[in-house]
């Protein structure tokens, strides 16, 4: 049976009001900037600088005669490196005219910080327990975890780098402790430089 078409069709919907469209446009601009901001959240050159610091730390750590001496060198590097990285991220955000704590930058910091805090606490616990040899592996695992979770809001290369750090952590935990400085140098030095250069070149510094 043929369908019946009513004579009086429903009136066409009202076009959206000007202010509604304006708010929609502003939301679109904000969303686009936040999505595009993922390209700027991590500083590639900052990573290269951290890699150089780690390489220098590795050379000094090699010269130490005890695991504790080596640990102090790495702790000093772990204090200096985040300061350099933060400076590089702030500089990059300013150059791109994007607020540091907006969108992906904020998400990265919120995701990256918890594993770092856990790492700092576990360092104290393991040091007191005298399990110093396990500290480098734990650092690499937790740093990698932070980079993977924080990098989920960034370009794909960042979480890939995090996975590499986690693998380095696993290797450090299951190999002789005499290899620790070498693995730390390869990971904190080599991986930061190897991943930092392409990020800097492709994603604006």
């Amino acid at each position, binding site marked *: 049976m043929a369908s019946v078409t009513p004579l009086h069709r429903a009136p066409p919907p009202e076009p959206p009001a*000007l202010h509604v469209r*304006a708010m929609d*446009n502003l939301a679109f601009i904000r969303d686009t900037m936040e999505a595009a901001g993922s390209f700027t959240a991590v500083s590639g050159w900052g990573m290269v600088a951290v890699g150089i610091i780690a390489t220098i730390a590795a050379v000094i750590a090699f010269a130490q005669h005890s695991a504790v001496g080596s640990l102090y060198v790495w702790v000093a590097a772990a204090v200096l490196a985040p300061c350099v990285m933060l400076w590089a991220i702030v500089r990059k955000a300013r150059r791109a005219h994007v607020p540091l704590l907006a969108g992906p930058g904020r998400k990265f910091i919120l995701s990256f910080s918890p594993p770092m805090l856990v790492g700092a606490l576990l360092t104290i616990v393991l040091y007191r327990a005298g399990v110093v040899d396990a500290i480098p592996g734990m650092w690499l695992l937790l740093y990698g975890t932070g980079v993977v979770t924080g990098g989920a809001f960034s370009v794909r290369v960042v979480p890939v780098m995090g996975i590499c750090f986690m693998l380095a952590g696993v290797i450090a935990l299951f190999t002789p402790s005499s290899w620790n400085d070498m693995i730390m140098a390869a990971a904190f030095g080599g991986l930061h430089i190897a991943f930092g250069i392409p990020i800097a070149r492709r994603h604006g510094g």
Partner: protein
Amino acid sequence: MAKHGTARDDRRPSVGNLRTLRGKSEADSPASARAESLDRLIHERLRLGIVSALAVNDSLSFSDLKKLMKTTDGNLSVHARKLEEAEYITCTKSFAGRMPKTEYKLTAAGRRALERYLDHMEALIRATRER
């Protein structure tokens, strides 16, 4: 992100010509008067997206923009060319090994245009609230 239209979207009613669609009372309002002076070039969604993305980056490659805007090669290049012709963005073509690489950058004129556009949008919202 919303799906973007093609280059033909320019023919759709924009905020500017909503004046004719929405009747005289609203058309004569200050909000509507402000809408008249909108920069049509960046009012189109994809072009607005390109300019907004470049505003928070030193430069972006064609493939970065394509991924970000979730659009096709043809659509992106048409809209990018329009922005380039207006000198809102610059385009640099080079080779990375054997692969051609196209990089876009926002010009000072493009940044000013985006700032003007943002001012317009805020003014539209303010004017509607004051009514």
